[in-house]
């Protein structure tokens, strides 16, 4: 019956189909309007500003009044001709990949540990305490890191010195800089990152665990055969979303920790754009690099999504 109706519906002209759909689902479409307006005004309309990447921008003349740049790829060329670019791109990808790794697997392991904790009260306390750092700003985290890792006054170095060792310049050395960035990212994001996994774990049918217990499965077998497959989709979705930000590397985070001493291991695309583009009024350069980043990020998201279809866990 329903198939016949669907067939009749599909034979209607497009305009009629749209009209019928709107009439039938109007409350839902009404609720959709604010969302559409939001995205149109704040996300899509500003994209017109991307034209700045191809203009010799003059503040007084505005975006549309400024002349086109010749050649049109001048600012892209400027970025790629900068002798610093290789190092910047390498740092960005390195920090991002590490952040992606520590942002996903430790949180997953932590979520598994919390969900397996038999004492629920204790698990809740651990969970709450673990996601508190998420609410600290990077400036505060830098303060904490300095108090812990500073050569002169850091707790860690005090202990090392008392044990007869040499103080380690964690914050001032190219050797350790990326490690510190990854470590602080892990500390700040571990608990918060676990929330999504915990929510997914809670959604797994408990009868599966009961059946597995009856069949003689231990805790690890249950995690391997029930929990991990149960949260596979959410894991892939998070992975796809994170891949989209792989060229970001976290401007606020890196900028706060960056000094001249660690610039060769810490300068990333965004910090370079900030000083070169915004600090020196070169908005066209900043836009060109931003546009390039967006195109690459979108490509990466599409590629990851296509790849994840193999595991039937793609977003679309």
């Amino acid at each position, binding site marked *: 019956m329903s198939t016949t109706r669907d067939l009749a519906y599909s034979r209607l002209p497009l305009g009629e189909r749209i009209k019928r759909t709107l009439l039938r689902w109007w409350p839902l479409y009404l609720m959709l309007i604010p969302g559409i307006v939001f995205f149109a005004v704040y996300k899509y309309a500003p994209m017109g500003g991307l034209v700045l990447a191809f203009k010799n921008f*003059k*503040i*007084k003349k505005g975006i549309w009044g400024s002349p086109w740049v010749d050649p049109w790829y001048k600012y892209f060329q400027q970025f790629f001709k*900068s*002798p*610093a670019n290789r190092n910047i791109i390498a740092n960005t990808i390195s920090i991002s990949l590490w952040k992606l790794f520590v942002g996903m697997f430790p949180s997953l392991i932590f979520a598994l540990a919390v969900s397996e904790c038999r004492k629920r009260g204790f698990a809740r306390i651990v969970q709450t305490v673990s996601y508190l750092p998420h609410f600290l700003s990077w400036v505060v985290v830098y303060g904490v890191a300095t108090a812990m890792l*500073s*050569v*002169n006054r850091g707790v860690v170095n005090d202990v090392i*010195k008392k044990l007869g060792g040499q*103080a380690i*310049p964690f*914050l*001032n050395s*190219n050797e350790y800089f990326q490690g510190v960035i990854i470590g602080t990212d892990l500390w700040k994001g571990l608990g918060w990152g676990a929330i999504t996994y915990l929510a997914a774990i809670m959604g797994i049918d408990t009868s599966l665990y009961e059946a597995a217990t009856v069949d003689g499965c231990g805790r690890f077998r249950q995690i391997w055969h029930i929990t991990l497959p149960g949260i596979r989709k959410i894991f892939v979705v998070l992975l796809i979303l994170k891949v989209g930000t792989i060229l970001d590397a976290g401007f606020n985070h890196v900028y706060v920790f960056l*000094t*001249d*001493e660690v*610039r*060769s291991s810490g*300068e990333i695309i965004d910090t370079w754009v*900030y*000083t*070169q583009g*915004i*600090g*020196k*009024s070169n*908005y066209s350069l900043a836009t060109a690099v931003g546009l390039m980043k967006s195109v690459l990020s979108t490509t990466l998201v599409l590629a990851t999504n296509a790849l994840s279809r193999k595991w039937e866990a793609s977003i679309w």
Partner: protein
Amino acid sequence: MKRIVTLMLAIMMVLSMAAFAQAEEPIRIVCYTDTNANGFPADLESNYVYQQILDRTGVAFEVIYLDEYDVALNARIMGEEEWHMASMKSATNLVTYASQEMLLPLTDYADDLKVAYERYGYDTDIPSLYYDGVQYGIPAAKAISDYYYLILVREDINQKYNLTTPTTVPELYDYCKALKAIDVNEDGQDNTIPFTGWTKNNGFTAITAPFGVFLGNKVILDAEGKASNTLLAPRMKEALEWVRKFWADGLVDAEVFTGDSNVKANVVACNVGVAAMPWSNILKAKYVEQYKAVKPDAQYGWIGALTDGKGGDPVYAIAEYEKYTGAKFVINEACTEEEIEAIWKVLRYFCTDEGMMLVYQGQENVHWVYDENHEVALTSRNGEANFVHAYQILGRDDAVYLKGKFPEAKEAIAFGLATPKLIVYNGNVVCPEDYNLADLDAYVNEEMIKFIKGERALEEYDAFIKELYDAYDFQTWLDICEEQLQAQNIAK
């Protein structure tokens, strides 16, 4: 009856319009500055400088400090926020804005400028005020902040351990070695920092300036008077060798590059032996109080510039060539005639005795008085005038200003003034838009730190210079400097 009511309404309307006309708002001038001033009043009502300017000129002259100045100023301009004046942190900034036709040419205001010139006594032929032959920058009398640097030592420690203060770089090395073995803050911990320095590489000039070297990209004149660069200084490797030796032997603060607040914290904590830094950050009464609270018998004094130990002259720190003026202000091209007139009215007020002293010391008989010798004497309320230097739009005569403001540091200031400096000319060179000086500076800073810390071998110094030529077009930068300094008759 209707007529009476109509008449009454008409009278009321006329009266209210008259009242409105009387309560006309003063012209508001927004002036952005990069000068950070402590104790800036939270609101305009309690800002007596603002109120006095308003009272004397009828102009609501608002000075607003912006943190991260270049970025913040650009953001405000892009956001089309109202602004009338802004300070330019460098000549390059002036070029950026002037080339975009955003600044008011000052060609028609020669008479107004002349008043300021006569009052503050500065040169007009400063290249950094001009773009394409047109003057856009309002010059500021040169503050002598270059002369703030002193080599500070712990006099109490010298006395207690019978240490002789150094006069040469090798002696400084031995002195620091001796300090390393001493617990200078007597807290029982191994935390003595024998040597530290201000503003990254500037502190190291205590060691490198006697060799004619600054560890960075600074424009200098060579022995023949030709434009050159400190990176090409003949004794660069010798100077670097010494700095590396200090670093390798643990005589330098391992966090010296972290920032000036870190240096200051260590100096106040009294665990420093030698600090190459501005007097203003430790010899002011309030800082003396701070370090005395940590260690009551601690006493920072200063020593003269060092020599290379091989018969050279004593030199310490860098100073910009005297014709360069630092902070200067520009006027927005979009200002109306009334606003421009209001700006000059305020600037002319700063050229009067009262206006100048207001932005030097605060209000007469409140924050300062003239003593019997007609010298400025501060009152107990002078602390309320800590922020007034943000209003020094036309600069200041430091010899007058500092003597009155910080009587406790009179000797230190005189000593700093008399110390021979390494003269640099970066302020006289305007970098063209198409040369990426920021990239060059960033790379030089990075690599210099590696050389200092021994992360890069000294044998690679020539290769480093070649990298600058090959990848950063260093020759173009040298040519720009040479051409501009020759045009100003500074270099041969």
